[in-house]
């Protein structure tokens, strides 16, 4: 039987951890979306140097473990004289890491729009930017929503990496409570429930958008 007194006795810690996880996830979500879109555009842009930058970023970042990206911000930057608090370093690492995946997702979506769309848009007088903005991206977004939802759900779960660098998130406090009570299983069951509170609605939201956008096609 699960011991609920653990939850009540450590309610403050669970709540603080939950709140910090929410903040880290939201910040990283917005940040990685913006950064990811930027790098996706770099990768498909007709300008060669931008191509290289986009490819280098994606291939470099997505092929190393998240925890190392976070460590880079946590101990690497201070070595160069830039000191970031654990929470900030962790959230930044998470943003940079997720952005690589988002960039790939968006790029795939844009490439899924038939080439003729861009050609037609350009020949009707739109600039490359306008064609992207008004013709290509609105179509790409439909293809992109389901995999993007996956990335965001992964992001929320990946935010548990903050626990390793004392980022005061849900996982961090879970570890502390477990160490404090000598209870392992029950403590982490509650941690899992708190994560589900975030990820399940996100998951449903994605399905909902998916259905709505599919209808408007």
């Amino acid at each position, binding site marked *: 039987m699960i011991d609920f007194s653990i939850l009540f006795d450590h309610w403050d810690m669970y709540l603080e951890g939950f709140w910090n996880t929410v903040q880290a996830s939201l910040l990283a979500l917005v940040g990685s979306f913006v950064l990811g879109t930027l790098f996706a555009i770099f990768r498909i842009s007709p300008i060669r140097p931008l191509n290289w930058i986009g490819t280098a970023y994606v291939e470099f970042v997505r092929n190393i473990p998240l925890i190392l990206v976070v460590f880079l911000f*946590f*101990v690497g930057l*201070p*070595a160069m004289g830039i*000191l970031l608090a*654990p929470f900030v370093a962790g959230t930044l690492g998470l943003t940079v890491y997720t952005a690589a995946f988002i960039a790939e997702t968006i790029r795939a979506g844009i490439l899924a729009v038939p080439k003729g769309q861009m050609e037609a848009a350009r020949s009707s007088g739109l600039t490359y930017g306008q064609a992207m903005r008004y013709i290509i991206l609105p179509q790409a977004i439909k293809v992109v929503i389901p995999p993007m939802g996956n990335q965001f759900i992964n992001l929320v779960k990946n935010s548990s990496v903050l626990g*390793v*660098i*004392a980022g005061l998130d849900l996982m*961090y406090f879970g*570890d*502390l409570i*477990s*160490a*404090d009570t*000598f209870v*392992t299983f029950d403590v982490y069951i509650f941690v899992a429930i708190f994560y589900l509170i975030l990820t399940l609605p996100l998951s449903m939201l994605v399905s909902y958008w998916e259905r709505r956008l599919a209808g408007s096609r």
Partner: protein
Amino acid sequence: MKTKNVWKKIAGMGLVLMLSATALAGCGGAKSEGGTASTGAGAAAGTGTLAKIKERDKFVVGVKYDLNLFGLKDPASGNVEGFDIDIAKAIAKKVLGDENKIELKEVTSKTRIPMLKNGEIDAIIATMTITEDRKKEVDFSDVYFLAGQSLLVKKDSPINGLKDLQKGMKVLTAKGSTSAKNIRASAPDVEVLEFENYAEAFTALKAGQGDALTTDNALLYGMAKQDPNYRVTEETFTEEPYGIAINKGDAEFVKAVNDLLKEMKENGEYDKIYEKWIGEKPKK
């Protein structure tokens, strides 16, 4: 020729019988292990840790791999060495007659009690402080090392003790350690950040993520030895008696370990190990 073949057959059958017997014994052993863990009363003859160690002819012990002087894995040789390991070897020598009949398993402050409880290890020798709370979960041997909590700071730091810790300062330590509880109680104004282990806490300190690292001085000396840019403050503000943790209720094994510790202190072997790692004679 024919007789030879018969003998071969008999030998073969014997081998099969022996193998199946070992396999059965293996199953039985696993069962009694489970029984010990669940009832917690393994002192009855044949089911205690001592019997388990003898049967397997190996002492499986949880030690740290990341602690200079106590349990540290040498990256060059791959060997784990330290004070705790020498104590474990002494137990293996006493129980099995050979100090090399040990199997080391890495534990952290977080994993060690669960690992002991589910039978993965026979004992914890991992700089573990004896506390009342922990006594509810495991049994402890007599004190095998007496340490005290202190602070590790940068060489030029103005911090010389608890009184110099001010509001807003960050003190680093490891998750699940007594040090974390102690520092929260004795310096409630400082922010305490807890890491997976002391190596990571030290990495964070070196990166400038904190003003001091706190734990038992015995461990801090090891870190200061590793990086001379850091020093250990002289003041110790707690007494940390380290004990060997053994599964609850196994009085037989606790007694065996206590007898051995006493013997080692009397015949000078303990002092020798102490001096080898800490660099000075134990305080009497």
